């Protein structure tokens, strides 16, 4: 398995096409997510931002600081107390208006970055096709089998590489989004709070990549895999099936102190089932 994994790493490092695919993934992620970012015009029309409406209303109604609001709503304490918060017409602070304060220190905005992640539509499509499904018509699995590698070695080498790369790409995407749209969270929120949420979201995204992984083994065809993976991405994004509706609910409970165990277990279950089914398929399939 180790040598197969090393072979995959070598392939990635020498393939301009694969490296370009990753770059395209990250750019698409940023672009698609940016289409629904908070702007001045939609700040008070907050249908898309989970929980943000409550926060902003409270903040406005109570003329309080973000820190004060955080304490009342049991959010983590901000590390650096910004200057006294200002509503739109009040002078005297480093922030010019409510929007900047909100963007700078709202953990709800950070939660929106994590929970929306609209690039998820694109990742399954490109990932499953470029990093797995193409190998079937090109028959490159055969080269490892010819020299005596067992199917399970080839499978696990490929699987480890696929999910490790999926995790790293998800992590990079979430970090990029956070840096571009909510970078202040690194400065003003506790590191443990920020990183635990980033890592859990990357883990959730990785687990959801297991379905396109299984599709690739089922269809052994890059075109069909791509189409089904794209439909899958659209399904989970727009119907809220499993993610992000359940994630929103669980993440909200995390703000109250309880770790989103249900969500984590569901995602882990998806990963285990899909990998196990793929393993069985690959073991039994006749290869060309």
């Amino acid at each position, binding site marked *: 398995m180790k*040598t*197969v994994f*090393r*072979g995959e790493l*070598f*392939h990635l490092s*020498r*393939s*301009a*096409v*694969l490296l370009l695919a990753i770059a395209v993934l990250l750019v698409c992620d940023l672009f698609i997510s940016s289409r629904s970012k908070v702007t001045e015009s939609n700040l008070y029309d907050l249908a898309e931002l989970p929980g943000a409406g409550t926060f902003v209303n409270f903040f406005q109604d109570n003329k309080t600081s973000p820190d004060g609001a955080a304490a009342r709503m049991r959010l983590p304490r901000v590390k650096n107390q910004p200057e006294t918060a200002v509503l739109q017409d009040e002078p005297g602070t480093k922030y010019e208006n409510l929007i900047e304060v909100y963007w700078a220190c709202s953990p709800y905005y950070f939660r929106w970055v994590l929970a929306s992640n609209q690039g998820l539509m694109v990742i399954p499509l490109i990932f499953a096709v470029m990093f797995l499904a193409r190998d079937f018509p*090109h*028959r*490159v699995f*055969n*080269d*490892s*089998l*010819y*020299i*005596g*590698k*067992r*199917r399970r070695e080839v499978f696990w080498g490929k699987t480890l590489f696929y999910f490790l790369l999926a995790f790293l790409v998800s992590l990079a995407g979430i970090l990029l989004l956070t840096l571009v749209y909510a970078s202040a969270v690194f400065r003003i929120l506790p590191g443990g709070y920020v990183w635990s949420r980033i890592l859990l979201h990357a883990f959730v995204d990785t687990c959801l990549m297991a379905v396109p992984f299984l599709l690739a083994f089922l269809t052994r065809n890059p075109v069909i895999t791509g189409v089904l993976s794209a439909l899958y991405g659209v399904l989970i994004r727009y119907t809220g099936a499993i993610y992000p509706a359940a994630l929103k609910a669980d993440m909200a409970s995390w703000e109250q102190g309880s770790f989103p165990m249900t969500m984590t277990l569901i995602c882990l279950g998806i990963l285990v089932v899909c990998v196990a089914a793929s393993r069985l398929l690959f073991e039994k399939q*006749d*290869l*060309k």
Partner: protein
Amino acid sequence: MTDTVFRASGLTKRYGGAAALDGLDLQLTAGRIYALLGDPGSGRTTLLRCAAGLVKPDSGEVEILGETGDGVYAARHQVGMLIDGPALYRDLSIRNNLKLQGRILGDLPKGRIGKLMKALAITPRDTGNRTVGGCPAGLKMKCAIAMALLPFPRLLLLDEVFGGLDTDDSALFVDLIKAEMEERPMTTLITGQFFAELYPFATDYLLLEKGKIVRSYTREELQARIPEDLQRAQELEDAFKTIRKEDLGA
């Protein structure tokens, strides 16, 4: 120590209602070059796929270098294969495809890739940064042959290589096989449809029909029956068809 490097016993493989292999028995002896001849659909590629573990036969057994069952995995470390055309990463160059296979093999001596590329006249101009996807079919075939020879195999199983090579490259390939056989004991099995391609090269000829070996010949037997002055491919094909008809009645 046995001289048998490969044995198939009662090998059967069905696809739907059709038997690609039908109780096939085959034994390959060390140091020989076997030509496995058969028409499309006769079972040549299916036999090699069974040997490689790409498909599981419905019944029968494959023995490689004296190993059966689980032991064949270790035995395959000493086998080179090229089945049903080159299986290469199209987004990598020729050299990087070979290097990748070298990584998976794990303990390839330095210089092996360069030596094989030189022997097959795969030049820096051919390789460079060009990916396999942009290479002609002959170059891809040469890369696949080099890949099969990377692990210094004792048994080489090649599926229709001559169809992908021009005259010059075919000559290079034959010279390379002979050079490899001088360096270490190696048995080669090449499948093909056309007798004329394989006649000058092989030491033994196996005729495969409907999933079974129906006849085998040594080179000496055929030389005694084929006039020496026949050089043209069509003449050789016709001569072999005549021999086949005499022996099999078809």
